[in-house]
C-alpha cells in the first residue's frame, strides 16, 4: 500500500489532469501537472490538519474575540489560493520554464550548480539529515528575506498587506501580496542555484514545517515554554512580530520556523506578549478590503513608495 496522499495525487493526475492535457494538446506538461497534483493534495491536507488543530486552540484560549469575523474570510481565500489552487499551478509552470532557461544557459557555459550533498559528501545516504540541513538554511534565507522586506520602503509597502490584518488567525499565514510572493520565490530560486534544492521526498516534513508557520499566526495564547520558545517559533513569539508596535522597520521575531536566526542576529524579543496586531495608519482597503482591493492597495502603496524613496522611518511605519 503506497502513501495515500501520493495515491490521491496519482488518481487526480490519471483521471482528471491527463485527460484534460490530452484533450488540449498539452501532453508535454504531464510531468509538471503531476508535480502540481502532489502539491495540491498535500496543500489540502495541510489546510485540513491546520484547521483541525488550530480551530480548537483558538476557541480554547483566544487572544482576542471579535463579534464580526468577516476580515478573516479573505485570509481563508488567500490560504486556498496559495496552498491548493491557482498559485501552485502558476508557480510550477513559471518555475519550470525559468529553471529550463537558466539551467540551460548555465550548462551551455559548462557550469553545473552545486548541491549541499556534493559539497558535504558525508550527507550522501542520509536523506533525512540532508533535508533538515536544507530546511535550516532555507529558513535562515527566509529570515533575511523577511527582515529585508521590513527594511526597504518599497518592499514594506507590499509586505504591509500581510501585517495589516487586525484579526490575525492561523489563516493569515498565506496572506501576501502576489508580488511579495514572487520576490520570495525568486530569492528561493537564487538560494536553490547556490546550494541546490531539497528533493520533495519528505512531503510530510514539509507539511509539518508549514503547519508550524500557520500555527504561529493562530489567535491563541499558546507558548512553548522558556526552552520551547527558543527551539521553535510559537504563536506567542510570532504575535510579537505582528504587534502594532512592531510594524515596519522596528519589528522583531522575523523567523518563520526557527527562532535561532533572531537570537543570532539580535532581533529576538521574548518579552512582548499577545499585543494587538495590524499596521497603524494603513489604508482601510489593506485590512478590510476584498482580495482584489487588498492587492490593488498593495500596488498603490508600492507606487507611492517608489515615488518617495526618502521617506522617514516614522512615516514608513505607517505606510501601507
Amino acid at each position, binding site marked *: 500500500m503506497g502513501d495515500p496522499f501520493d495515491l490521491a495525487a496519482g488518481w487526480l493526475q490519471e483521471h482528471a489532469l491527463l485527460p484534460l492535457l490530452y484533450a488540449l494538446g498539452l501532453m508535454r506538461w504531464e510531468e509538471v501537472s503531476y508535480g502540481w497534483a502532489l502539491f495540491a493534495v498535500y496543500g489540502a491536507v495541510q489546510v485540513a490538519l491546520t484547521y483541525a488543530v488550530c480551530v480548537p486552540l483558538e476557541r480554547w484560549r483566544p487572544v482576542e474575540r471579535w463579534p464580526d469575523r468577516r476580515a478573516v474570510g479573505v485570509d481563508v481565500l488567500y490560504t486556498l489560493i496559495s496552498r491548493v489552487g491557482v498559485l501552485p499551478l502558476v508557480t510550477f509552470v513559471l518555475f519550470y520554464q525559468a529553471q529550463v532557461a537558466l*539551467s540551460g544557459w548555465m550548462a551551455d557555459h559548462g557550469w553545473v550548480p552545486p548541491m549541499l550533498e556534493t559539497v558535504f559528501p558525508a550527507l550522501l545516504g542520509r536523506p533525512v539529515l540532508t533535508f533538515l540541513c536544507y530546511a535550516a538554511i532555507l529558513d535562515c534565507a527566509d529570515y533575511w528575506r523577511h527582515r529585508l522586506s521590513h527594511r526597504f520602503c518599497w518592499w514594506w509597502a507590499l509586505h504591509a498587506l500581510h501585517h495589516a490584518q487586525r484579526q490575525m488567525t492561523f489563516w493569515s499565514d498565506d496572506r501576501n501580496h502576489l508580488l511579495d510572493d514572487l520576490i520570495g520565490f525568486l530569492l528561493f530560486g537564487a538560494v536553490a542555484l547556490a546550494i541546490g534544492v531539497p528533493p520533495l*521526498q519528505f512531503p510530510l516534513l514539509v507539511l509539518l514545517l508549514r503547519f508550524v508557520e500557520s500555527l504561529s499566526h493562530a489567535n491563541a495564547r499558546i507558548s512553548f515554554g522558556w526552552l520551547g520558545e527558543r527551539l521553535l517559533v510559537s504563536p506567542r513569539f510570532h504575535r510579537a512580530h505582528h504587534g502594532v508596535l512592531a510594524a515596519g522597520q522596528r519589528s522583531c521575531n522575523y523567523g518563520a520556523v526557527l527562532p535561532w536566526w533572531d537570537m543570532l542576529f539580535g532581533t529576538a524579543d521574548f518579552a512582548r506578549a499577545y499585543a494587538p496586531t495590524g499596521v497603524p495608519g494603513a489604508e482601510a482597503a489593506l485590512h478590510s478590503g476584498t482580495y482584489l482591493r487588498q492587492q490593488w492597495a498593495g500596488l498603490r502603496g508600492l507606487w507611492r513608495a517608489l515615488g518617495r524613496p526618502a521617506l522617514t522611518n516614522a512615516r514608513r511605519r505607517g505606510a501601507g
Partner: protein
Amino acid sequence: MRLLSFLCLGIAAIAPMPAAAGVAFVINSGAASISLIDMGTRKELARIPALREPHHWALSPDGASLVVGDSAGNALLLLDPATGALRRRVTVADPYQLGYSPDGKFLVVNGLARNQVDVYDARDFTLVKRFPIRSMPSHLAFAPDSSRVFVTLQGTDRLAAFDLKAMRALWDVPVGSTPAGVLWHDGRLLVADMGTDHLVEVDPADGRVLRKVVTGKGAHNLFLSPDGRVIWVNNRVAGTTEELDAKTLAPIRTFRIAGGPDDLAFAPDGKVWITRRFAESVAVLDPSTGAVTTVPAGRSPHGIFLNPSAPSAARLARG
C-alpha cells in the same frame, strides 16, 4: 551487541541461500531513490538513495555497471547491477534519458530540461559533443551500426537525427504530437506520439512519416520483446499496454494497466514488468493469462531494470 552482530553475520554466511530469482531495479523518480525488489518474493530488499530525480538507466557495454541518470541531481550513478552497491558518481548535466551506442564507444545523454543532447566518451565520461536542441529531448534510439542516434523532442513535436561519426546534426522534422518513445525496428523507426493515440513509422534517412498505427490514447513508450516477435506499447492516457505483431504492426491484444504505464521490462518467465508512474507501484503482467499483480515501489516509478541472475536476497541484504 557488536559480538551478537558478528555471530548473526556468521550464521547468515553459512546458511543456505534461497534460490536466485533475480532482482528488479525500480527507479523512483519522485522519491529520489531506487528500489531493489526480489523478483521471486516481490518484496523490496533495499532502497538506494539518489540525489534528486533519477529517471532512466543504461547498462555499460561490459555489463559491469548499471548507469542511472539523476537529471535534477546532475549525476550519473554507477551501480553494481548484481547488488545495487553504488560504485561511483559522475557529474553530468541533466542526464534524463541515456543509452550506449551499440559499438560501445559513446554514451548519449538527453538533457530534457536543458535542451541538449550530449555525447560522452563511454570509457571516461568526457564530453565529446554537445548538441543544443529545441526542445525537451526525451527518448533515444541508435542505428544498429552506431552511425546515428535519433532523439524525440517532446517540446517541439519533432524527431532529430545526429551523425555520431561526423558529430553533426542531420535533420530535425515534425513527427506528430509530443513524441516520446522511439525504437529502431526492421530498418525503420517507430515513434510513440504521446499527444495522440498512435505511433508513427518513420524513415530513418530523412524523418519522413511513412504510416500511423493506432495503439491507444497517450502512446508513450514501446519495446521489442526478447524473441523479436512482439512490440509492446504503453499508452499513458488510455491506461493500457498494447501488443503489436512485430512484422505487420497489427494489434494483437490490449491489457488494462492503470496508473500511468511507463517503462517496461521482460522477465525470463515470460512476465512483463511495467512501471506505473502515478500509482507508486509496478504491474507484473502475465501475458499468457492476462493476470496482473502489483508490486509496491516508491513515488513515481519510472525506469525499470531486471537482473534475473542477481544474487539472492540474503546476499543483497548484506550488500
